[in-house]
């Protein structure tokens, strides 16, 4: 119990430390200069209705590329870990999901996919974007996988989707250097009419690529995990 009280004490001290943030916090009156700049100039510079999207895809596009990379890495590593020794082994099925789940998921599946696509295509106009859309798609796959463990998205298709979207993303980024002001500049395409689907330069394309890639990667992760034969099942 000594250890538990130590941990509790430690957590209390930790909370106390973080509490300094709370006590030092003063609600700002105005936006800071960066935020101000974004909110003032985003529309003219990037042309997305959703400023967050503009920040995510363009201003801080490098972060986003990194983020996609993180998912890519996770997917690769998980695939590597889970499938290394299983080469050639037949996939042993886990227990079947319930009837209701399987029926429901089958009904929901197409809708979810469409929803996901909608979310990322409209990322520059409405809340949401590539990651959210991809996650929705991933969830759809997950659901159906839970319902029907035998379900498996063709790995080949996933790879193709993932690779092509990823490479496209990178190439678009690179085009920024040649055609516009810098890496990942969305202005390689015309900004278009503000508020329309085909606007904000390359953002819809980038976000679509991200959506596809994230969706494919998440699906890959889920399938990998779901199909892992644990020693006891």
């Amino acid at each position, binding site marked *: 119990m000594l250890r538990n009280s130590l941990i509790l004490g430690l957590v209390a001290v930790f909370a106390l430390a973080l509490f300094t943030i709370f006590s030092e916090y003063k609600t700002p009156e105005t936006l800071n200069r960066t935020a101000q700049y974004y909110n003032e100039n985003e529309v003219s510079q990037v042309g997305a209705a*959703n400023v*967050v*999207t503009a920040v*995510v895809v363009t201003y801080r596009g490098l972060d986003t590329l990194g983020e996609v990379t993180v998912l890519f890495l996770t997917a690769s590593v998980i695939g590597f870990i889970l499938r290394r020794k299983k080469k050639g082994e037949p996939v042993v099925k*886990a227990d079947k999901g319930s009837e209701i789940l399987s029926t429901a998921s089958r009904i929901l599946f197409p809708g979810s996919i469409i929803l996901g696509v909608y*979310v990322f295509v409209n990322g520059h106009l409405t*809340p*949401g*974007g590539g*990651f*959210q859309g991809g*996650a*929705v798609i*991933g*969830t759809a796959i*997950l*659901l159906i996988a*839970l319902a029907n463990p035998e379900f498996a998205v063709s790995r080949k298709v996933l790879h193709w989707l993932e690779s092509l979207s990823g490479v496209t993303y990178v190439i678009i980024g690179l085009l920024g250097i040649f055609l516009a002001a810098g890496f990942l500049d969305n202005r390689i395409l015309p900004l278009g009419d503000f508020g329309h689907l085909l606007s904000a330069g390359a953002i819809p394309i980038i976000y679509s690529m991200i959506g596809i890639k994230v969706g494919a990667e*998440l699906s890959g*992760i*889920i399938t990998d*995990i*779901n199909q*892992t034969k*644990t020693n*006891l*099942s």
Partner: protein
Amino acid sequence: MITFNIVLLIFLSVATISGALVAVTAKKTAVAILASGAISLFASIFFLVLASPDVAMTEAAIGAGLTTFLFFVILRKTESHHAEK
């Protein structure tokens, strides 16, 4: 000035924190997973109140949805043997 937002937020924070307490103290892992999923849901409402719909969506889709499911999958694959003593 106590607005609706504040009332909602107080309720939310109480809910989130109790959820968190459940999540870290629950005996059954499944309960903990559910609780953490609930936290994510509450958190996404938090984000909505904090004027961040993008984050809210992400949290809902990834935190509440995918992560929770993933936990369950892993749980199912390990639990059949034993749970925490």
